[in-house]
């Protein structure tokens, strides 16, 4: 049943139903409403969880790391500068193979200070070993949390994940969301069964010193697990679809790509605007489609190649910039499509909360079809 609610509240409600045992987070715009709601739920005994208040994001994720190692299902949420402060702990959580799920309310990074949306924060942690999922709307955001726990806690994976949704554009938007009941969530997501945990009776060490004889093998194992997460996500997404009727069996999702000459590639809430723009362009006879990237890590290179067969031009929308080398998604799409003969152009767009309209999407397609790309779209040159 659809209910009308704020995106942040939908996240808090679904996290509650995922039954985390330990929650630790530090409030930061635009993530704040999520953790306020969860703190309230814990205080009201609606969740049987320990809510650990801390003085920083570094401590929040450290508390989650310890609790996860002790065998608890844990949850955190952050954004932007908060995620930057977690940098060290993020790498440790992945290296210790701890299935933490953390919501990222995507926001730009300073300086200059900006509270508004882009995806620079989570993209900048792309090499950390965390899975990364991006949601188009608040329904998908809620659903991906359940799927994320399933995938992360799979004993073949055992890695943490970000569930990313765009700050303000989704966090603060009220729209209809269907939330499954507690019983339905329990049927999909069984209680956490740790592969190993800290236990005084059976002592173990996590994150030990690794000499040059061992370090590379640890890194190899993490990379293999991330690669396996590809199939685990497809399976968990398909089973989600069977139970709830919303299919997430794709790391990518095509929209009107059949017979398309030009494909846009995007992640997150911008995909909704792109779909509307694609419909309008189709009405005018232009053969345009969208490939939405749902999982950025593991990167779905093969899925992208398969989905774009027959396309001649690709325009990638990057809400991030790898300073000195273009957008992160565009760079990886170009690598995936190397040798395919497809022309791939990258567009840095919507940084720091700049609004994107349907006409901007049309303008990007125009540029790509003229062979003009690898640029910042919509720059106000008069202030440069």
């Amino acid at each position, binding site marked *: 049943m659809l209910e*009308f609610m704020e995106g942040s509240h939908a996240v808090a409600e679904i996290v509650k139903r995922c039954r985390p045992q330990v929650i630790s987070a530090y409030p930061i715009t635009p993530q704040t409403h999520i953790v306020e709601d969860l703190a309230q739920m814990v205080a009201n005994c609606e969740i049987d969880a320990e809510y650990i208040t801390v003085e920083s994001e570094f401590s929040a994720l450290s508390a989650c790391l310890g609790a996860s190692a002790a065998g608890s299902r844990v949850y955190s949420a952050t954004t932007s500068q908060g995620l930057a402060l977690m940098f060290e702990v993020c790498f440790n959580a992945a290296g210790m193979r701890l299935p933490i799920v953390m919501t990222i309310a995507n926001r730009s990074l300073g300086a200059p200070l900006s*509270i508004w949306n882009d995806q620079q924060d989570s993209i900048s942690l792309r090499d950390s070993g965390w899975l990364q999922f991006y949601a188009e*709307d608040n329904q998908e955001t809620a659903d991906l949390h359940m799927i994320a726990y399933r995938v992360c806690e799979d004993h073949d994976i055992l890695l943490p994940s970000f569930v990313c949704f765009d700050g303000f*554009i989704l966090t603060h*938007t*009220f*729209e*209809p969301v269907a939330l499954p009941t507690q019983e339905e969530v329990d049927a999909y997501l069984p209680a956490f069964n740790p592969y190993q945990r800290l236990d005084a009776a059976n002592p173990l060490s996590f994150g030990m010193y690794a000499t040059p004889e061992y370090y590379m093998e640890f890194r190899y194992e993490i990379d293999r697990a991330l690669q396996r997460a590809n199939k685990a996500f497809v399976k968990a997404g398909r089973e989600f679809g069977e139970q709830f009727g919303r299919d997430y069996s794709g790391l990518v999702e095509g929209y009107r790509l059949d017979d398309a000459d030009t494909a846009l590639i995007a992640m997150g809430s911008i995909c909704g605007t792109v779909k509307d723009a694609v419909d309008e362009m189709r009405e005018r006879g232009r053969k345009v489609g969208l490939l939405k990237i749902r999982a950025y890590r593991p990167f779905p290179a093969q899925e992208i190649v398969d989905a774009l067969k027959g396309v001649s031009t690709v325009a990638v929308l990057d809400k991030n910039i790898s300073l000195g080398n273009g957008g992160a998604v565009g760079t990886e799409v170009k690598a995936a499509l190397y040798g395919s003969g497809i022309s791939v152009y990258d567009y840095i767009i919507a940084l720091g909360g700049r609004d994107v309209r349907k006409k901007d999407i049309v303008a990007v397609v125009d540029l790509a079809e003229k062979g003009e790309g690898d640029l910042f779209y919509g720059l106000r040159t008069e202030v440069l």
Partner: protein
Amino acid sequence: MTAAELIAYAAFEGGVFSQAFPAFGVERRGAPVQAFVRFSDEKIRLRSQIYEPDYIIVQDPTLIRDVDVFNGMSSGGIAIINTEKPDLDFRVPEGVKVYIIDATTIALEELGVPITNTTLMGAFAAATGEIGLEPLEHALRSRFSGSMADKNVRAAERAYTLIGGAA
């Protein structure tokens, strides 16, 4: 933002898809804020801000001096403006119908505070016909409880009747 949320919620209760979202400048009470609402018979995917509104609500008339609140409106549009000064001077685009309401006074009388969200929601419902009184009241009663709910419903109904909605 509260007015946008409540209007979108009432529209959803009335059986359509709706979406409400803010565009924050700075997050503090009293700072100029825009909030947007969309209704549709189909699921709403579009995330851009609204540049060509069918309807606008201006909660603070002093903004009219600094901002072109009618920007993007075209003939057939409806504007609802909260002001205590019915002779307020502003230029209205051709074909846009303007409703003036002293929502601040109604809110002060009914709620005891100059918070005009629910009053203007009643005015919006009457002026546009987009939401009925019943879903409006339902939205208010799920947002507020007890006597606060009663007071807000009364404020909304007063505005609804004043603008000329059939009660």
